């Protein structure tokens, strides 16, 4: 199996998403609040995974522009959930960088009371796996 295919399968495994269910309706992109900041748009995540081009996805701006608000996950009529795909791509990046995990004990020290709640929740959501 090619490494590209492996990567695509890894994304599918982490996200639990079957990209073939997508019917290309674009509701994800229509729902996305940071659409304009993204170079690869939410509805395109799916085709990047189908085309086994995970590398582009991993190197994209979008990876870090996604707010993990999960509006696309909530509204996707086909259960494809592009937000989970991009989340999985981020996981791949994070997993590759060794030793970047925080242990739960370290978290309280890093807490800044100024940090918006939403960011915290979103961070937990991202790194929970």
């Amino acid at each position, binding site marked *: 199996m090619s490494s590209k295919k492996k990567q695509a399968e890894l994304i599918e495994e982490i996200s639990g998403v079957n990209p073939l*269910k997508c*019917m*290309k*309706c*674009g*509701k*994800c*992109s*229509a*729902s*996305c609040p940071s*659409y*304009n900041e993204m170079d690869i*748009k939410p*509805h395109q995540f799916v085709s990047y995974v189908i085309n086994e081009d995970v590398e582009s996805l991993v190197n994209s701006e979008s990876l870090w522009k996604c707010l993990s608000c999960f*509006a696309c996950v909530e*509204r*996707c*009529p*086909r*259960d494809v959930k592009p937000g989970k795909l991009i989340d999985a791509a981020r996981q791949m990046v994070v997993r590759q960088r060794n030793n970047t995990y925080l242990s739960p004990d370290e978290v309280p020290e890093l807490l800044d009371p100024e940090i918006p709640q939403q960011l915290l929740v979103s961070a937990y959501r991202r790194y929970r796996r």
Partner: protein
Amino acid sequence: MQRIGVFVCHCGSNIAATVDVSKVAEMALMEPGVVHAEDYQYMCSEAGQAKIADAIHEKKLTGIVVCSCSPRMHEATFRKAAERAGLNPYMVEIANIREHCSWIHKDMEEATKKAVILMRAAVAKVNLNTPLQPGESRVTKRALIIGGGIAGIQTALDIADAGYEVDIVEKTPSIGGRMSQLDKTFPTLDCSACILTPKMVEASAHEKIKIYTYSEVENVSGFVGDFTVDIRKKARSVDMDKCTGCGVCQEKCPSKKAPSEFNRGLNNRSAIYTPFAQAIPNVPVIDREACIKFKTGKCGICSKVCQAGAIDYEQKDEIITEKYGAIVVATGFDTINLDKYDEYAYSQSKDVITSLELERVMNAAGPTHGHLERLSDGKAPKEMVFIQCVGSRCSDDRGKPYCSKICCMYTAKHAMLIRDKYPDVNVTVFYIDVRTPGKNFDEFYRRAVEQYGVNYIKGQVGKVIPQPNGKLLVQGSDLLDNRQILKEADMVVLATAIEPNPDVRKIATMLTASIDTNNFLTEAHAKLRPVESPTAGIFLSGVCQGPKDIPETVAQAGAAAVKAIGLLAKDKLMTNPCTAHSDELLCNGCSTCENVCPYGAITYEDKEVNDHGIREVRRLAVVNSALCQGCGACTVACPSGAMDLQGFSNRQIIAEVDAICR
């Protein structure tokens, strides 16, 4: 001992490509009772059937096994062929070596082995087959149509024109159904009422058609040709014979706050009402929930103003029991509930409406008298947005997995009509795909784009946000330009998914008609018997079977009528001989079987029997073979094995088990 012939079909390459058919035939000759075996290209062809007939004559066959496709496909064909050759048709068994073997296995050796085993099981069964004679039952020459929409009306007219009595049972106070709520129809833009009303009048005036409005089917018993149906005629509180339909009662009624069902709740109606001007019958009903007289005992204005003295507050529900030979289900559809689609702000803004509501808005008899205006403030809209596939093609539990089929066309119609009547209104349609198969359909859609300048955008809308200035901010995507669109609209129209009328499940249960997970009634065969239910004597008309537009509905209604007429034209029906029967010498008379029979086909009689010289009167189960449908529930309930099912006897099934496990 039987003399069995085994016929192995190649089905072209469908079977022969994976099953060694000559090997199966060769192996068949080693089975007990088999005196003839051959394989042939297409057993179901005339030549193939002739081979069976020849073998029956030449080899004096008493039983036939055809190794071919599913018995659901060609069992009837081969039974008829055997009958023509003088053999009892129930001496034929099918070994399904296509659907259950060649089509699912790839390895030839394995598939052949399995085919041989399936053949053996069928041979083992035929060895125990006995000739069966179908019984006869009479046909009541009257049809029942459940639902009085265009599907029901058309079916009724077609059956009645053939000379048979037809009763229509309609739940609401008038026939007409969804079509009566539509303004114009695609792709010709005829006025819906103008083409429907004559049909309604024709039905009501037809001497063979009886219409029960404001009525529901309460209970169904019996079987094909001889159904007995209880119809509940709900209390109308108005005497149908006396009422002249003058309408004064509705004018004077002081309770005018009940939401109008006909106008989809966009405006209100009086407590005593006819749903719409062309209603048939033109006799109002009193909505007892809304009526002041029924709520408080005081009022009675309608009774005072009625010159004909037709108001009857004492009227009670009435149960009418009638016999029918055929039943046609035409229960139609409704739009789905949008509570789970918060993102479209349907419940937050009056200016977000469904397409069916837009039909009422556009209609001269509707809440706005046909003026296109915002329901919140009555202002004329300048920007309109249509959103397609709301709840259709959804794999989650919010919507429906299927395409509702009619939305692309009616949205093109709406867009076109608006652009035609109000050229200053901009119309934008957000779509996923535009699906316009059908005669003149794509041309119609292209006219909306090319001639009327409707702006079609490929992409779905993510959310609709009501703004403080009363406008609606629509956030959607344009997948072709790869951009996100923010658009301020005055009105948003949702192409809401349609679903079968929720009552259909209850009706299907009464009729023992099968129904799928989406509540659409299942047809007997998806391609070859699309208007019949698998339950004999039940026919399907209109959207209760699957989404369809008006021309398709009318076509299907006619087809259902022809099928019903075909049944009603018969004086007698052959009944399925695969029924249960009880061995008198073994029956204990314990009533266990009676308790599990869903058809009430088993009764008990005190009968004298001669049990090996002992003559005595015993309580014995007797099966009414006209009522028995052959499910076999009684055969397992019976501890002594007295009850057995012809065609699927205990010994036959055990022989199959033994052959498979050999």
